[in-house]
């Protein structure tokens, strides 16, 4: 674990985290005369259609004598265009100065603002630039980084999945994160709620480091529910990074390009939960198409809507993951055997567990929410017995009640000769 660097502030200001609405884009240097630019940029983020009408041309500060790095700094901080698209044009041998816009901020101000936020901007070839062997596709031209630079992809594993995964799958993400941390691997994931957050939390709980790749400015508190997690990642020596300049809002179009970075930052991608249209599929396919990237998938039942995408990936040739050992196996690392964290959260059956409770839990193992009347109908148990069995399961920590019904949060451990699950009673 790298030591905590005192000069790096968490990019999410205290005042921000407490306010109700989404934070206003605010990346102009204080006192500067470019408030109009900021507003224009915000409008630009909201309505891409306006981009076509904006005046093209170089900013007022530009002179041919400006060093190339300064021009790149201004380009990276230019609000509006998708960084991946700009990087594609740069790779197509466009002159960076040609891509500047009239509202591209002055490089000195950009540097001052980055210092103020405790961020660094990395360019290809800089020390700490992660994409040395296999670059992402489309390429990446710069990275805004909070915390230490990310480790090289070989040592990292991406753990990704949907925002609305079932609690059982979240538990899988958590235990994989913890298990990977336990064998010294860095966990890479997005900054979303759900599987991303569970994987980061697992890795941190396991004493490891994590890299969160976000789809907005690093100073933008999004998603709000993860603000505390981001602070913790930085405090424990992890990294937040992204291509978007400070103040950039989390536009939907940002996330698929973000996923290619996740894939490129890790030697393998483990997809824990992906519905039919999950963004995790983009991550996995980016990893698969990149060459060296390996795709591992936690499978699901064919009828489980939270696993449609997972099963598709397995059909397409991804490696099926039953547990941490399968991931380590794929990475060529030594399997840790029976001492590994179990994949799902297991609990031992309490002594004297009723048959009714067992019958109900068997109906819930896909992780879906089932109304209690439906549980009674499906199990054939009388209403009173169903109700009592739900509470028995709840008290034993296997299910939780939601406004819409009952959902499993853990599965009972089944002791077998080959794999002895570690029972953790809470």
């Amino acid at each position: 674990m790298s030591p905590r660097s005192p000069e790096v502030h968490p990019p999410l200001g205290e005042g921000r985290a407490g306010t109700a609405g989404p934070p206003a884009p605010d990346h102009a240097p204080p006192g500067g005369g470019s408030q109009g630019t900021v507003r224009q940029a915000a409008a630009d983020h909201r309505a891409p259609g306006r981009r076509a009408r904006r005046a093209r041309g170089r900013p007022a500060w530009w002179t041919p004598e400006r060093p190339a790095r300064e021009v790149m700094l201004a380009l990276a901080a230019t609000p509006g265009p998708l960084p991946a698209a700009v990087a594609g044009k740069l790779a197509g041998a466009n002159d960076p100065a040609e891509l500047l816009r009239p509202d591209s901020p002055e490089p000195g101000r950009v540097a001052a603002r980055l210092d103020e936020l405790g961020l660094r901007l990395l360019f290809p070839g800089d020390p700490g630039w992660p994409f040395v062997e296999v670059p992402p596709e489309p390429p990446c031209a710069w990275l805004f980084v909070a915390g230490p630079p990310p480790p090289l992809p070989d040592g990292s594993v991406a753990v990704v999945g949907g925002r609305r995964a079932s609690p059982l799958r979240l538990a899988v993400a958590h235990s994989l994160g913890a298990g990977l941390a336990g064998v010294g691997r860095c966990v890479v994931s997005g900054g979303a709620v759900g599987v991303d957050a569970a994987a980061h939390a697992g890795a941190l709980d396991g004493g490891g480091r994590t890299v969160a790749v976000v789809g907005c400015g690093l100073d933008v508190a999004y998603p709000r529910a993860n603000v505390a997690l981001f602070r913790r990642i930085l405090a424990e020596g992890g990294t937040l990074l992204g291509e978007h300049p400070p103040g950039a809002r989390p536009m939907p179009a940002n996330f698929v390009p973000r996923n290619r970075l996740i894939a490129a930052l890790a030697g393998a991608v483990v997809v824990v939960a992906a519905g039919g249209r999950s963004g995790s599929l983009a991550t996995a396919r980016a990893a698969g198409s990149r060459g060296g990237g390996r795709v591992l998938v936690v499978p699901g039942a064919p009828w489980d809507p939270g696993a449609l995408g997972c099963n598709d990936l397995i059909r397409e040739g991804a490696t099926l993951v039953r547990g941490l050992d399968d991931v380590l196996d794929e990475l060529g690392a030594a399997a840790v055997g029976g001492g590994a964290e179990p994949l799902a959260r297991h609990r031992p059956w309490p002594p004297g567990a009723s048959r009714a409770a067992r019958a109900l839990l068997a109906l819930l193992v896909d992780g879906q929410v089932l109304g209690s009347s439906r549980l009674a109908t499906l199990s054939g148990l009388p209403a009173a017995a169903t109700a009592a069995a739900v509470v028995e399961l709840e008290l034993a920590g296997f299910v939780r009640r939601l406004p819409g019904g009952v959902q499993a949060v853990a599965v009972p451990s089944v002791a077998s000769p080959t794999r002895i699950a570690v029972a953790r009673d809470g």
Partner: protein
Amino acid sequence: MLARLATAALVGLTAYPVGVEVDIGRGLPAVMVVGLGDAAVLEARDRLRAAFGNAGFEWPDRRVTISLPPSDLPKQGSGFDLPIAIGLLAATGAVPQAAVDGLWAVGELGLGGDVRGVRGVLASAIAARDGGARLLLVPAANLAEAALVPGLRVGGASSLAQVDAFLRGEAGLDPPSPCLAAASAPVEDLADVRGQPLARRALEIAAAGGHNLLLVGPPGAGKTMLARRLRGLLPELDRDEALEVTQVLSAAGLVHPGTPLASARPFRAPHHGISMAGMVGGGPRVPRPGEVSLAHRGVLFLDELAEFPRPVCEALRQPLEDGEVTVVRSAASVRFPARFSLVAAANPCPCGHLGDAVLACRCGSEDLRRYARRLSGPLLDRIDLCVHVDRVTADQLGESAGGEPSAPVRARVHAARALQQARAGSENARLPVAGLAGLCAPTPAARRLLAIAVDRLGLTARGFHRALRVARTIADLAGADGVADDDVREALSLRLLAGADQP
């Protein structure tokens, strides 16, 4: 010449005796009404003049002074038309003064001289009996209602001419018909409900223990259908309760003319756009009963609980606690009875499909949190039971046989209520916290289970007491002396979800 008789003024649910004094004296032709009447009372003089003319009576072209003592009692509505008209007839000498001595009358006059029904006649009849009336004259439309009060002679009239003829001794009044109560109308039966085993069970428990119930389920799952069936599970209204219900309906003007006595428990389902005055009672100067009182002794159903304005929900706390509601307006402060069973319904999430087997929920976690906060509003600490109502599947709809009908359920509810009355003299939902454990008598296993629940489910003190009361009701339904651990388990499965219990 001065004529005197009596009538009654309705304030809230109670009618107070009011004198009617009509004096015809010297002076320019004019009609003065004194004695704190509202606009409708003042309009009486215009209606009277037209009614007199059209019914063929002579209008006295002299100075007419009408007083309605006591002057400090607020008087509303058009029920004073008939007594004033009778007073005028007596003051002009058209009818003998002896005929109006001890006479009470209420009723509105149409411009053609017809006598129209008014609200609150039941209360007026009670006031007339208590005031020692010789006869109460009411509109024919209200006759059956007035006749509900024993020990009072009542007569109905449908026109001013009939009243005049009666007072001159030339004709009779309509006598009250002997049939007072409607044959108990069929209420919705549980046999119509397909599936929903847990929701049925929750309804039974709610009916047995007087617990308030929250139904959570997707739109179209049958929450309203279930709520409607609760009143069929409650015991039939006894005579006193029926009179209470009728009195509220009478004050609201909702009594059925032919069969005035309420036979079924009321079911009220106000829309969530309802105002505060509509819910708890109100109106200008003198309040009228609101939905909580119209649901007295019956069921108040709040569909889409989260959509009800917070102040309206807050205002339900007093009636839920005390069984009555006090409404204060400029002219009067009125207490209305409001002892009802509350059934609330809510969608599980803003889109309504969380946990739905058919349609996927599209709410984000932040939406869910916000919704849970809105739902866990002021009312939830008055609700003991919460149950999921699932969408009924197609094969369940196709089942020819419905579920258990209401009658056997009602019998079990009756037996459980009898046990409660014998034990504590009140329904379980109203057992006081002090001595609750003693009354509920949990077995050692049930005690242990409750302790575990406090530990693992984060049960609050209030949740603990609530679970104990509900478990007591469940044990009463089984006819058991002590509360067993399975009773507690079932009670816990029906507990409310805390707002924080969200993904």
